[in-house]
């Protein structure tokens, strides 16, 4: 690993103190049993098929063309979209516009480790998945030879990162007035011991990626991005190990969950439009007042002039 001279680096052999605490290494069974109580309730009190409530808003970043903020309890995602710009370092004409996506974790976002400041494999992979999911949603013919930059920053990671990033990016693109075919929404599911956890937390995702104690048990994570009105799957990623029927069942659940998010996104966008209309009306009124004041002044000066 080459040394990064552009930033400050701590000592190389530092380790997180958490690995010396008593409950650092837990067996799979312990972790698994912790996730759910006897009434099939998860740690945060949700039922298995219950997604977290989503909070989202637009106009988060003043300097960007469009921006959004999505919060799923502890998962916090910020996204900004900038004006189209010419595709850098390219000679060929591209008839379709490009989308450049970058997903970045804040150094302090993950509870298990400090994220390096240079992009790692997971971030690159998330960026690629985000790009693939957004491409079918955006009318790319509308800006040939140009690219739109979509930047996603994950402030705090508590599961369902990719889903959060896609939701945030969809909202920010709409906020930036980029033409799109449909509202894009996404949701993930974790499979642990043949149980389906909708909208998993970081802890649940961690266990889902772990090796189960017994062989042949389904485990893993699926994320689906949907264009719900058009009934199209825009992005699909699956990881882990599960049989075909499990994948198909989970996809059906996710399809419904994605549909549930659509009204929330629409509501925010409608509010956004109303706010903008109000603002422009207010500005127009102010401008008219100013003009009237100026006209009055003019009349006075005219009088003064004619008096002379």
């Amino acid at each position, binding site marked *: 690993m080459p040394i990064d001279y552009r930033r400050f680096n701590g000592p190389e052999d530092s380790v997180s103190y958490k690995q010396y605490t008593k409950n650092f290494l837990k067996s799979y069974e312990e972790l698994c049993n912790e996730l759910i109580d006897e009434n099939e309730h998860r740690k945060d009190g949700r039922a298995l098929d219950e997604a977290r409530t989503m909070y989202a808003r637009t106009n988060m970043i003043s300097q960007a063309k469009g921006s959004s903020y999505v919060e799923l309890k502890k998962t916090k995602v910020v996204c900004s979209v900038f004006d189209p710009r010419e595709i850098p370092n390219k000679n060929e004409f591209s008839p379709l516009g490009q989308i450049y996506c970058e997903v970045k974790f804040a150094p302090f976002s993950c509870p298990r480790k400090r994220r390096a400041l240079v992009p790692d494999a997971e971030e690159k992979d998330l960026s690629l998945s985000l790009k693939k999911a957004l491409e079918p949603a955006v009318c790319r013919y509308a800006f040939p030879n140009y690219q739109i930059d979509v930047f996603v920053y994950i402030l705090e990671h508590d599961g369902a990162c990719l889903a959060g990033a896609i939701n945030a990016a969809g909202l920010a693109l709409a906020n930036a007035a980029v033409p799109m075919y449909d509202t894009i929404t996404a949701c993930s599911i974790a499979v642990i011991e043949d149980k389906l956890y909708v909208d998993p937390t970081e802890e649940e995702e961690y266990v889902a990626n772990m090796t189960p104690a017994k062989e042949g048990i*389904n485990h893993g994570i699926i994320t689906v991005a949907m264009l719900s009105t058009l009934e199209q799957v825009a992005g699909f990623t699956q990881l882990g190990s599960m049989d075909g029927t499990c*994948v198909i069942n989970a996809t059906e659940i996710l399809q419904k969950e994605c549909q549930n998010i659509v009204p929330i996104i629409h509501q925010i966008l409608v509010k956004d439009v109303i706010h903008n209309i109000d603002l422009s009306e207010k500005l127009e009124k102010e401008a008219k007042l100013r003009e009237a004041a100026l006209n009055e002044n003019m009349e006075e000066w005219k009088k003064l002039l004619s008096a002379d």
Partner: protein
Amino acid sequence: MANLLLSPLEKMYILHGVRDDCRSDGRTNIDYRPMELETDVVSHASGSARLRLANTDILVGVKTEIDLPNNDQPGYGKLEFFVDCSANATPEFEGRGGEQLANSISNMMQKAYQSSDAFDLKQLCIFEGKQCWKLYIDILILECGGNLCDAVSLAVKAALYNTRLPSVKTALLDGGNVDLQLSDDPYDNKLLNVDLAPLLVTLCKIGDKFVVDPSAEEENCSVISLIVGATGNKTNYNIDNKKNESCTDSKCTTIVMNGSGSLAPKTLKNAIKQGIEAVQFLDQALGQALLRERRENVTMKKYSYGFLK
């Protein structure tokens, strides 16, 4: 392959062919092109394989090293994939052109092998929490003729099947340091259990149907493809050919959509099923080929072709 230009009529020809289940080269929608596979081609690697699928040529070498296990996974070994797109493969790979493709392939492989159902990393453990084997899987793409993912996954599985780890004679813990003694005998080694290692199948959507193993022309006709990775089957690698072992179903280890299009949910579900079936067929064929290679190796009757064939 972006340089390939097809006229609308040529595209129509391919489209109609796929619709009628008879592709331009005479295959049906679920047929693969002929493949050539040879293991043990690189003498300096612990395991190696070369696979040629039509014009796609891939060489895989496995290197082994002793490493420290991760803190949060003391009983597990490590696996690392590295893809190198040779500039000879296609003109696009010149300079840094192939880097993105190489990254996405190595990422795909890493994801496919992540689950313990696919590859048990416990078999790479030497001394829990202190030492483990780390396998470097170097994938060299010598020629690019489409369908890289499938070819790479086949070649990697073959190379891992061929990999021999030196036997550990003794491992003693001496004041916090591990004292390790490996066997001197080059024939005293351990084979890896890769029966369940996953294979990737790319399903390319052309018209309303999916085809496997698309040629470069066919890839040009489709906007969306689905890569399905599923585990292999133990019975295919049973050297005694006993069928008494229970036949386990293939499990999906990774599914990714590739390309700029989208899919209807129903089509997606059908494609996943089709993909799993294709993996099972492919795995069976690979199993037969690998078993034959191993038999030839044991009886010392193997004739090495290398790159001459």
